[in-house]
């Protein structure tokens, strides 16, 4: 993991162009804050905005506009990405205003919120954009003052020539600098010289959030916009048979009722084209309340689906997906998972001779972990504004993956890509759910058919019962110990409905001589999708609980046990070993051990659990301390240690880890979407238990490993190990292991025994 200090090849987005007419946007007279005057600098007073590249505009009145290219869903990229640009530009953060960039792949790459990769994948491009504009400003200034380029320095948005004691602001030089040919191979800053990145900066949207400005998709309006809602089957496994809208059409405000086909027959789905119900009844009307009420008068008959096969393209391959007929239930899923897990599975990785090792073991420990479907439950329900005509389409929507959405919309509408315009609104949460843009296709078809600008709104019930859930998983872990209680073999066999979670090359692969990972899947008509740290959010819960139990059986301290395994993976790795970095993994364990006072006598009485995990390129470890009160756990302290490389915005990153910890405790304790005869049994927050204020830990103490590694991502990695740290702490508090999520249901069952 080296840092890049050279720039990437010249890109079209770095082409400098000047744009006129924007300099007045803030109405701030440039003289009011400037330290030099036009007379002193010899510049003309031209209030223009100059575009240096897709990321940077500078006005002649010294306002630095930085475009934030990625969708914002609370991960704070709207602040952190511009910080990276501003750092290399050497701008004064006080003079920076941030704008949401348009979705435009000619200007930006990977405008995607997901995989914890917004910072990781834009890091170099954003630094280059900032450094390139700074270089252009320096070159223009050197020419203007007729001094050598090397003698022109910058600090906080001002250019200096120390020998002649001259200075000029970026704004004053913007017109000239924007004319400079775009330099190649600009030098990036030394990391030690950072003064914006690595410092805490407030959320640029903070004031708009606390004053209730219309930032979100649901807040977007256009003149004469109509409201649309969709009626879909009440259960997975059903489809539309017929409907009667007579009563609905008599209701006040109602304009139209019709059906839409989300995708045509034999449509080949792209990666984020998951949709649960293909045919929907649409009610369009004037206001939300009118449409909500009228919808209740719809008379719809549903019929069972027949088993079908759909071609699905993923990032790397294509496959046929079976969607079985039937009305599925959670109880039945669990029975089927037990049956299926006893049968042979697909081998995903094998090192050494695990079969013989288990045969010769002095002791075998075997445990099975199970978890339910989870609903994303973003606070802002699914919605999308669409205005579609015969020749073009405009969307304003909260969405995570515009690039994929645009392609799907263009295909479905039969329009060229350049006729699709997508405005990315702020998202009221995403957690993976808003990568699946079926709701945009629905909105497009509704606008097309209604011949009007429309806003599609899902009610909370629609949002929670539609599907695209975190799958339901189970995994059986086995460990073989020799007579001296050494770990000689490790076996994980995991499956799920409808996908398995196993990441075969992850820790403790490469740390055990004999290792076997297997997976199996049960087809289902319950639709699934990415949910904060997909698969990892289950794997960490299971594996890290198992390692805790294993360490106890071996008579080892759980942190020391993991460190020994990691040392083995480092010194003498078994088999393929390119997945995790044992040093960084050990680093977070050592840091959390130190910060939590692990093993110290004063903490001996605490019910504390530890867990760590690597996913999405970063490392996280947590120690949780809890007490039991009236049969419920009260989490007192959480200590978190994270290695995500360079931290861009320390306070925001801390906020994100605090949130991930509480989110993890909430989902582990309470999260569950259960089904009966295809019907989701929870459809709103009065039935689906979310963690609330009084259930949050009293304190979360967040620490980052200090290193100069390029950023590796933060949104997801802290989340998965929380589940296991909690399970391990619960064991200390109750003397019982927790194998089945949600843990609150498990606690209740035990209290009933």
């Amino acid at each position: 993991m080296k840092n890049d200090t050279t720039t990437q090849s010249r890109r079209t987005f770095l082409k400098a162009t000047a744009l006129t007419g924007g300099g007045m946007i803030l109405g701030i007279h440039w003289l009011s804050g400037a330290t030099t005057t036009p007379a002193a600098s010899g510049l003309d007073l031209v209030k223009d905005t100059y575009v240096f590249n897709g990321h940077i505009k500078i006005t002649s009145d010294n306002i630095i506009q930085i475009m934030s290219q990625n969708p914002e869903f609370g991960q704070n990229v709207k602040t952190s990405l511009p910080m990276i640009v501003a750092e290399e530009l050497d701008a004064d953060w006080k003079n920076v205003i941030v704008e949401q960039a348009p979705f435009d792949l000619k200007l930006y790459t990977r405008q995607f919120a997901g995989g914890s990769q917004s910072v990781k994948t834009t890091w170099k491009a954003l630094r280059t954009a900032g450094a390139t504009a700074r270089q252009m400003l320096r070159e223009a200034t050197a020419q203007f003052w007729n001094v050598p380029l090397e003698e022109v320095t910058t600090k906080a948005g001002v250019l200096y020539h120390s020998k002649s004691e001259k200075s000029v602001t970026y704004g004053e030089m913007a017109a000239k600098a924007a004319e400079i040919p775009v330099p190649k191979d600009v030098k990036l800053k030394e990391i030690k010289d950072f003064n914006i990145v690595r410092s805490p900066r407030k959320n640029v949207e903070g004031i708009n959030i606390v004053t209730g400005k219309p930032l979100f998709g649901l807040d977007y309006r256009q003149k004469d916009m109509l409201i649309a809602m969709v009626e879909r089957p009440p259960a997975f496994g059903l489809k539309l048979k017929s409907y009667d809208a007579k009563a609905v059409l008599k209701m006040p405000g109602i304009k139209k009722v019709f059906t839409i086909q989300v995708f045509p027959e034999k449509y080949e789905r792209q990666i984020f084209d998951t949709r649960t119900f293909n045919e929907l009844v649409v009610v369009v009307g004037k206001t939300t309340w009118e449409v909500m009420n009228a919808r209740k008068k719809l008379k719809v008959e549903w019929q069972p689906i027949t088993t079908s096969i759909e071609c699905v393209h993923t990032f790397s391959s294509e496959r046929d997906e079976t969607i079985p007929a039937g009305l599925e239930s959670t109880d039945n899923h669990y029975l089927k998972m037990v049956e299926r897990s006893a049968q042979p599975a697909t081998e995903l990785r094998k090192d050494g001779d695990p079969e013989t090792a288990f045969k010769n073991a002095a002791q075998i420990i075997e445990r099975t972990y199970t978890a339910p479907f989870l609903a994303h439950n973003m606070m802002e329900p699914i919605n999308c504004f669409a205005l579609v005509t015969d020749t073009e389409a405009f969307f304003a929507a909260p969405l995570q993956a515009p690039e994929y959405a645009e392609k799907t919309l263009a295909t479905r509408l039969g329009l060229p890509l350049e006729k699709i315009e997508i405005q990315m609104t702020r998202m009221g949460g995403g957690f993976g759910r808003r990568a699946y843009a079926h709701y945009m296709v629905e909105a497009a078809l509704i606008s097309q058919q209604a011949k009007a600008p429309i806003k599609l709104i899902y009610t909370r019930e629609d949002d929670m019962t539609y599907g695209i859930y975190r799958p339901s998983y189970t995994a059986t872990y086995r460990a073989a110990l020799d007579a001296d209680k050494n770990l000689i073999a490790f076996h994980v066999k995991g499956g799920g409905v409808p996908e398995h979670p196993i990441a075969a090359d992850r820790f403790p692969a490469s740390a055990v001589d004999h290792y076997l990972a297997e997976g199996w899947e049960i087809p289902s008509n319950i639709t699934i999708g990415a949910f904060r740290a997909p698969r990892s959010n289950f794997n960490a819960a299971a594996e890290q609980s198992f390692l805790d139990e294993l360490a106890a059986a071996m008579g080892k301290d759980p942190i020391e046990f993991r460190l020994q395994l990691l040392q083995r993976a480092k010194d003498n790795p078994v088999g393929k070993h390119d997945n995790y970095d044992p040093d960084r993994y050990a680093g977070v364990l050592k840091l959390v051990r130190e910060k939590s006072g692990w093993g110290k006598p004063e903490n001996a009485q605490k019910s504390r659990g530890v867990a760590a995990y690597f996913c999405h390129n970063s490392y996280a470890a947590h120690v949780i301390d809890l007490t039991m009160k009236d049969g419920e756990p009260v989490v007192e302290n959480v200590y978190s240690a994270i290695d995500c490389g360079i931290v861009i915005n320390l306070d925001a990153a801390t906020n994100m880890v605090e949130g991930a910890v509480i989110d993890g405790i909430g989902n582990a304790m309470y999260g569950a979407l259960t089904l009966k005869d295809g019907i989701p049994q929870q459809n709103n927050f009065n039935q689906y238990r979310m963690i609330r204020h009084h259930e949050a830990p009293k304190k979360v103490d967040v620490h980052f490993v200090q290193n100069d590694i390029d950023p590796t991502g933060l949104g997801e990695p802290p989340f998965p190990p929380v589940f296991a740290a909690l399970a391990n702490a619960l064991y200390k508090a109750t003397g019982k292991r927790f194998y089945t999520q949600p843990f609150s249901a498990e606690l209740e069952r035990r209290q009933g025994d």
Partner: protein
Amino acid sequence: MAKFNLKINGETHRLDVDPTTPMLWVLRDHLNLQGTKYGCGVAACGACTVHLNGYAVRSCQLPVSTVKDQEITTIEGLSANGDHPVQQAWLEHDVAQCGYCQAGQIMNAVSLLKLNPNPTDEDIESAMSGNICRCATYLRIKAAIKTAAPK
């Protein structure tokens, strides 16, 4: 449909609307006050919290016909420029992640402090437990309320 005169953020608004319409949708759809958020529609999340005569209510459960001449305050009317001590405390602690629930959290917190100017941690947890934050910024919300309390 029925005609109503509503006192919202210090101004009187006349409108003709279905009397069963919850204030949430009156604010959002009829008056273009988008700061009050829809989260659940069943008073289980707190995103739609506004003040009725100065105290927190869930606007999704408040039919417009029941308001009569009572004063409604929304997040837009809490202060002129975001300078209410609770809003300022929210900025100081940089509470928000996605931010969607925060208007409701702030309106609930302002109401709490009016009733209990010096709340304990338990008071805050209890009073705020009806407001869900899916990003789980609960610790910062609590810290911000404690900062705002003496002001």
